């Protein structure tokens, strides 16, 4: 109703007393006759009720196919995706390859343990001048033996740390794809088997390299920085450092090759891990027993670790612990790598996309 004054004649007869007439305001507010008559408004005359509006029928789920017109990247984009998926998984809990928290924790502990010489060098610097400092420097300072020991020492590096690290990282690399059938995700896309193998290999090697080689580099760099050594020291020790670095890289390559080959053999990551540890420790134990019985070190060529250690001793220029020729150890390393990569390639070639 408009605010226009209504004519009294137009209003219906409401039986009001003669002295009281209905007004337009009364009608607009919707007051009852009782309220008009006795002014019995309850104070909420201006209140407005909020009522639900009638809702239109909604759609809970509408299936619409949306086309995609984006550009696909070249080969390196696909390969980098594989690499990132496997490496980022160690640092990030979600979104990339899943590593068990225990595995991630173990890798962290191994990495931190491999950095202990840095802490000892720092300690020797802080207490410099005393006998203790000299002893600490001898034990953990940079010299040929310590550089060799940082990557190739048996205890604790190659007994407790590097083999365990390799087993944890490499164990499920390919066996998980066999077990879950995820190889189909790769090979039904423009990912070749060579790219697949190379990227998985590279991912494992980078993780191992980060712990083994990067900690070695940090160790050498920290020693120079903490001791305040100059260019002359750097030039003197650089060849030894590079020898150890090469030995570390060879160790990463050899361990990765053996681990990846074992991972490609079965559907179980535990088989690969245990198999790797068995090869590293088993061959050494056998060679040790033969040495103790027959006084010959030649059977150490069966042990990948000992072959690497022998070569490493030559690279950093320390006397060899082995009587047999260095050439045999080098051949052993080459054979282990060749056989492992050959097995890896053969097994990856047999991974299925469609099943018969």
């Amino acid at each position, binding site marked *: 109703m408009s605010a226009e004054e209504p004519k009294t004649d137009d209003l219906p007869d409401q039986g009001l007393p003669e002295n009281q007439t209905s007004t337009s305001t009364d009608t607009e507010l919707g007051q009852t006759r009782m309220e008009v008559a006795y002014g019995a408004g309850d104070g909420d005359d201006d209140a407005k009720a909020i009522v639900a509006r009638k809702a239109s029928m909604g759609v809970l*789920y509408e*299936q*619409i*196919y*949306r*086309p*995609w*017109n*984006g550009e*696909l*990247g*070249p080969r390196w*984009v*696909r390969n980098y*995706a*594989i690499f990132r*998926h496997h490496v980022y998984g160690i640092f990030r809990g*979600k*979104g*990339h*390859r*899943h590593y068990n928290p225990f595995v991630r924790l173990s890798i962290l502990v191994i990495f931190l343990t491999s950095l202990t010489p840095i802490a000892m060098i720092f300690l020797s610097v802080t207490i410099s001048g005393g006998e203790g400092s000299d002893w600490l420097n001898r034990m953990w300072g940079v010299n040929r033996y310590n550089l060799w020991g940082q990557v190739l020492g048996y205890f604790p590096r190659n007994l407790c740390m590097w083999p365990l690290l390799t087993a944890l990282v490499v164990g499920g690399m390919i066996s*998980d794809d066999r077990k*879950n*059938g*995820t*190889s*189909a*995700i*790769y*090979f*039904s*896309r*423009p*990912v*070749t088997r060579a790219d697949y193998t190379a990227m998985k290999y590279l991912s494992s090697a980078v993780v191992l390299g980060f712990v083994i080689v990067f900690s070695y580099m940090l160790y050498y760099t920290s020693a120079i920085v903490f001791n305040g050594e100059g260019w002359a020291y750097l030039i003197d020790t650089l060849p030894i450092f590079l020898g150890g670095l090469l030995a570390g890289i060879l160790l990463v390559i050899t361990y990765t090759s053996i681990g990846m080959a074992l991972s490609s053999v079965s559907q179980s990551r535990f088989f690969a891990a245990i198999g790797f540890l068995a090869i590293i420790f088993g061959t050494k134990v056998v060679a040790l027993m033969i040495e103790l019985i027959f006084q010959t070190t030649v059977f150490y060529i069966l042990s990948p670790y000992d072959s690497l250690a022998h070569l490493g001793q030559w690279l950093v220029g320390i006397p060899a612990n082995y009587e047999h020729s260095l050439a045999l150890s080098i051949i052993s390393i080459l054979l282990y790598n060749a056989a492992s990569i050959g097995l890896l390639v053969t097994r990856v070639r047999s991974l299925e*996309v*469609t*099943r*018969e």
Partner: protein
Amino acid sequence: MSEGFVIEARNLRKMYGPHLALDDVDVQIPRGAIGILGPNGAGKSTFFKCILGLITTTSGEGNVLGYDIKTQGDLIRSRIGYMPEYDSLDPDLNAIDQVRYAGELIGMNPAAAMQRAHEVLEYVGLRDQRYRKIESFSTGMKQATKLACAIVHDPEILICDEPTNGLDQRSREFMLNTLRRTVDEGRGTVLMSSHVMDDVQEVCDRVVLIHKGQIVINRPITDLADQIEREVEVVIWGGASKMEEALISNGQKVRRMGRVMRVTIEDENTIDRIISTAAKSEVQIRELREYEPDLEDIFLLIMDKLGARVKGTSELMTSDHTGVD
């Protein structure tokens, strides 16, 4: 590529050692929804591998979307989506990351792959489950995730290997509707391999039947129904064996399934003859109607006919393999 055909093969032959898996296959497949049928070991998987460019063919040539299957396998695989029959998902990943990774593996940049993963997971009905780990998914949800992985890059050809395997009725209907919608709205091609004829009939316009390494049928489903003889379906009560014998002795062709018989219509008097035979045999006819064959009937009839015609494995061996001239 010839106009209208997405897949073409000429004299395509694949041998695994002495075993001939594909026997000089000549096929032209147009756009649309195509069912790939055939018994186990017929050569369906080998055919898929060949057109994906995953295995080298022994002889012959072929192209998919205009790309040579021998030399341009990677380009072919960039333009197709493949949904495998078996589990091919990482149980430790959640659905969104699995689909994103599938997109990255085809060359999408991570941001585009993530955005597209959201879109396709919504499309396959997993919007609310996309952050759940795949290990907690039901079979239907896993199938839907595999489909999402296959269509993440909006492929021109979608190959689905047994897409309804292990699905309940509701999930199956959703999957089939989704595949049909992908053809209609995505304007792509779906190649669907299935043993369930109803599924193929529901989604596909055309079937390609592979048997012992040969393409024996490649035509629209509607045409196939015209190829087989028309039949009358008769439901008999009280003496079906007697009725069957009587019909056969009258020279009529009968297929019997318990109390139901399908009698081939030979002329306009066939129905009269059936009724009079029933009267003579003193059996009741409860129902009598013209039978419309479905794809399964067509398939079984064709396989039955092929049984005698198609070469056996020993015949498929060449002198190069047997060493006998």
